[in-house]
């Protein structure tokens, strides 16, 4: 009897597995011989280049110090490490044998040429919105890159996440196929912005929290997420920016990589900014318009707080004190004994740049305007204090902040963070600061730092020197 029950169960399981396999099985698309470069229209390739920049493809598909688009970069997820693939047109290790149909299927359905499901670390849940023309241009661009022969490392995922077939279930649950449906009630510009933001630019991949299966939570769109050890701020009504964003300031930020009332892009957003340098003004305006809609009109109270923060920063510019702890670092009391230490640390190590009155992007942001200090946790400040903002390679002018990893002890850094939060924000103190500091130091929370290059529209005098040598 028991044996028969077990046999029945096994049979039922086998039927379910077989049905699932039949359902999720995707056909292989025949390999092709990579087309001649000359067969692609140069204008189409140029268009594809801009699209690839807007899609930030190079950042994930390039290993540290590796060849561009040759893959091999570890993307750390809660399920383990996914290694990006080689998307150069090498026939064996890249996409050289992929037809345009195969490429389009990967972008829209998350299935590779051989019919295997792709991990959604590749944001096909966004790329599915792309038009035929844009996919065609991206394909033309990638197929005309230098082929690089390189085998990327195998993914390092825990069971059961290492079973690709399960991804078919993920796609069934979470992949909403495109194309983009325009909203006739909105302007052309808004619709263009929505197409770019929700599609190729995949902004919400970082700026939206994810559920237990790694899919974006549809009910909390743009409520803030994370990326590479950094917090990606909320870009909806919960935006922690002291000065509310609007379409103009967003455009300014996206165009130049910094914004006077908000600061300099750093962390993964610095890499995004570097790519946005080639994006047309019209597209950036469209993105800004759409995102301003998501952010919504600020409440009168938020506006007042923003004005107050701006006034504080302006006052500091006028007095432009020079970093003496007698005049700086005088903030509200913090519970415990940390305040005095924090105030002294701020006054002696931070205020010299952050209250110098030297304009952005090369001067330090007045911390009354700091988004991370208003943020949900201390991670971004910890990252920046420890590693600083590295200089751009090749001597290109870029905002730089020195890292203080060797100078601050964990306890000193914790005191400084508590002080910054108490002085510059009305929000309650962060919890578990000490653990966040420790995790960043030990690598329990791996953090990737990027130089903030590609900075545009800097003031003419980039140094404090006003006269020749």
């Amino acid at each position, binding site marked *: 009897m028991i044996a028969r029950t077990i046999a029945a169960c096994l049979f039922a399981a086998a039927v379910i597995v077989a049905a699932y396999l039949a359902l999720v099985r995707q056909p292989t698309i025949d390999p092709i011989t990579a087309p001649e470069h000359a067969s692609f229209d140069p204008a189409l390739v140029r268009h594809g280049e801009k699209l690839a920049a807007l899609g930030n493809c190079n950042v994930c598909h390039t290993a540290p110090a590796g060849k561009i688009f040759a893959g091999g970069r570890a993307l750390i997820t809660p399920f383990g490490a996914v290694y990006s693939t080689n998307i150069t047109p090498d026939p064996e290790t890249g996409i050289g044998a992929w037809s345009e149909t195969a490429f389009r299927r990967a972008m829209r359905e998350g299935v590779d040429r051989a019919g295997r499901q792709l991990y959604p670390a590749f944001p096909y849940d966004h790329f599915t919105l792309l038009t035929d023309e844009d996919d065609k241009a991206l394909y033309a661009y990638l197929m005309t890159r230098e082929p690089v022969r390189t085998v990327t490392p195998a993914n390092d995922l825990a069971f059961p996440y290492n079973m690709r077939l399960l991804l078919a279930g993920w796609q069934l649950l979470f992949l909403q196929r495109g194309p983009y449906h325009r909203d006739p009630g909105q302007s052309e510009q808004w619709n263009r912005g929505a197409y770019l933001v929700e599609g190729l630019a995949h902004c919400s991949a970082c700026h939206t929290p994810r559920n237990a299966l790694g899919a974006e939570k549809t009910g909390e769109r743009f409520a803030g997420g994370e990326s590479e050890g950094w917090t990606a701020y909320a870009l909806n009504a919960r935006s922690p920016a002291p000065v509310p964003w609007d379409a103009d300031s967003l455009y300014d930020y996206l165009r130049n990589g910094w914004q006077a009332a908000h600061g300099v892009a750093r962390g993964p957003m610095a890499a995004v900014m570097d790519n946005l340098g080639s994006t047309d003004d019209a597209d950036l305006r469209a993105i800004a318009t759409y995102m301003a809609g998501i952010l919504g009109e600020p409440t009168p109270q938020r506006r007042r707080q923003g004005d107050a923060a701006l006034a504080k920063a302006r006052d500091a510019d006028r007095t432009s004190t020079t*970093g003496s*702890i007698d005049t700086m670092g005088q903030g509200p009391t913090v519970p415990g004994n940390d305040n005095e230490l924090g105030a002294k640390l701020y006054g002696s190590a931070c205020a010299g740049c952050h209250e110098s009155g030297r304009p952005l992007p090369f001067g330090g942001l007045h911390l009354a305007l700091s988004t991370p200090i208003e943020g949900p946790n201390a991670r971004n400040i910890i990252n920046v204090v420890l590693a600083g903002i590295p*200089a751009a390679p090749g001597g290109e002018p870029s905002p730089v902040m020195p890292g203080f990893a*060797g*100078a601050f*002890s964990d306890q000193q850094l914790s005191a400084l963070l508590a002080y910054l939060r108490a002085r510059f924000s009305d929000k309650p103190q962060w919890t578990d600061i000490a653990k966040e500091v420790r995790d960043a130091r030990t690598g329990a929370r791996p953090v990737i730092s990027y130089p903030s290059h590609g900075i545009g529209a800097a003031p003419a005098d980039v140094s404090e020197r006003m006269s020749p040598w």
Partner: protein
Amino acid sequence: MVKLTVNGRQHELTADPDTPLLYVLRDELALNGAKFGCGLGQCGACTVMVDGKAVLSCITPILLLEGRQVTTVEGLGTHDNPGPMQRAFIAEQAAQCGYCIAGMMMRAQALLQNNPRVSDADIRAALQPNLCRCGTHMRILRAVRRAARLMQTADADSAGNSQ
């Protein structure tokens, strides 16, 4: 009053606690190896080690350093008995004007002390914050590679005060 340990010697300093370490080293302790370059932590000429890690002394107030071990280029060896890092820089003649060299040596020392088996990419990445305007980068890289070899050999610790 801040108590500071520099190159193994204790000092009691009357300087304001917010004084940058560099000023104390140069003006009070007569340790002139670390240089003032930009004063903004952007050139690396002032690099020293604190507890074995490279630190920019021009932006590090001494109040952060109570009870910690500061090492300057003077702590790597003496004129008569230079340490492996110094021997390597002399052998490769890595200095032209020399202004950046103390900082270069200290950042390289922090790197190699942690792990002398480093790749060229590691050296380049580690020295990235330190600028040289004369253009002796290739010699500096050679010197650091030579120092790495020296530090892997048995006599590596025969000179210098490394902790």
